[in-house]
């Protein structure tokens, strides 16, 4: 279980997170929604330690993340980045097997290659893709490779940063389905940040809405449509009118 308590983060005068309280139960898929620039990525990166919060506490299974051994902590996570963040200089299979070929979990090259090809197959890519370079792939294929890399070491927790951004609706649907299937079959805890409502409905068990540096609403996805919160309703229905200021 991941718990955030009164987490704050500011960049200069811009207070991005103003006291986040959020619980992500083990084995659940939490989707954090919110407009662009509301601090969703900062929230996610704060948990991973890519951004250091100014105050507050983040715990994983009751242990403060600052007190855990860094490599062991990160070994429990997999992450799909918004743009894929694939390493240009490495072949697709080397990207997928990156963790498997280094550090404590290092395996022989042949075994790492075999696992990479299997994970690529799991995300719907043919074995021939393994020897290509990321620049030779389409956006959708890069997302799939990023997904394969995120699950390669079978992590307990997977983070998805805007998994469908930049994809056409059909490819978005495919990625959403893949995420849902993989999270379910691995029994992983998942946290996704997105503003794509089709992703929310396909992936989420729980939903949290971030606005103005605070969690405005959180609850099961089934209760999202009937919730009374005006901010949430404006966001999920994409209305220009409402308490969330929109720039025209």
């Amino acid at each position, binding site marked *: 279980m991941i718990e955030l308590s009164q987490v704050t983060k500011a960049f200069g005068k811009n207070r991005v997170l103003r006291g986040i309280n959020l619980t992500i139960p083990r084995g659940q898929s939490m989707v954090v929604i919110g407009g662009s620039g509301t601090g969703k990525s900062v929230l996610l990166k704060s948990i991973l*330690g890519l951004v250091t919060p100014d105050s507050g506490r983040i715990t994983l299974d009751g242990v403060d993340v600052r007190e855990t051994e860094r490599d062991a902590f*990160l070994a429990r996570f997999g*992450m799909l980045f*918004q*743009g894929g963040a*694939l390493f240009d200089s490495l072949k697709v299979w080397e990207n997928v097997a990156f963790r498997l070929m*280094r550090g404590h979990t290092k395996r022989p090259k042949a075994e790492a290659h075999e696992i990479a090809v299997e994970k690529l197959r799991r995300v719907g890519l043919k074995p021939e893709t393994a020897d290509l370079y990321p620049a030779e792939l389409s956006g959708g294929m890069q997302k799939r490779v990023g997904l394969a890399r995120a699950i390669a070491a079978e992590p307990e927790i997977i983070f998805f940063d805007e998994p469908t951004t930049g994809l056409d609706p059909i490819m978005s649907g495919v990625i959403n389905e893949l995420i849902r299937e993989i999270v379910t079959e691995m029994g992983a805890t998942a946290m996704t940040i997105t503003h794509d409502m089709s992703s929310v409905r396909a992936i989420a068990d729980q939903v949290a809405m971030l606005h103005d540096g605070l969690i405005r609403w959180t609850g099961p996805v089934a209760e999202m449509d009937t919730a009374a919160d005006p901010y949430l309703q404006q966001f999920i229905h994409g209305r220009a009118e409402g308490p969330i200021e929109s720039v025209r």
Partner: protein
Amino acid sequence: MSLTALPEAALASLGRATLAALAALGRIALYAASTLSHIVRPPFYRREFLTALLQVGWLSLPVVGLTAIFTGGALALQIYAGGQRFSAEAVVPQIVAIGMVRELGPVLVGLMIAARVTSSIAAEVATMKVTEQIDALVTLSTHPMKYLTVPRVLAGFLTVPLLVGIGDIIGIMGGFLVSTEQLGFNRASYIKNTIDFLETADVVSSLIKGAVFGFIATLIGCYYGMNSGRGAQGVGGATKNAVAAASILILAANFVLTSVMFGS
């Protein structure tokens, strides 16, 4: 603004620029210290190191060779023309040798490396930062300093002295060709004068300068790449600043090293 306020504003602006430059130098020094501490601690990334050796060393050979041969040739012509004023044309082999080995070889190779390698490293690392590849490295339990900076800096430190040595030889060859083919020098005596005049200390100083310049050029590329701003403009800015900073630091280091090794 009144006229009396103008010098004050100029001084304040100069002060701010000086403080900013010193702060940047301090950050680079800390980054260098951190790099050195990571060089001696595992894990080591052999493949990245070998790739960096190829990129920094082998692929820089053509530009280094061409720069050195033209400079050596031009140097011979200049010394000959200048020497004629006081009947000292005969010193061309000695001055070309000492000029190339002690000064022009290391400095020109350093500047060529700053142009070719520093820019390439800064642009590559900055792009990796902008596209979240560096964040991805961290989430994959890989320290960016160990994976990106250490192999490149080590490759620069080890290969640039070799490039300088090769540049020195090619530069002297450039002077030799011009002197013997155009200025009428005897081949055998030119080579003998060059070898007799050069001392071990000259060559060692050249190689030491190469190692220091290689360290600076690669370190600065990594530093500016890692601290790049966002988007294409951030990558462009990081590349431009890296080349400028590396060039200035190489020239400053050259002065310091020359003062230390030959000042007395």
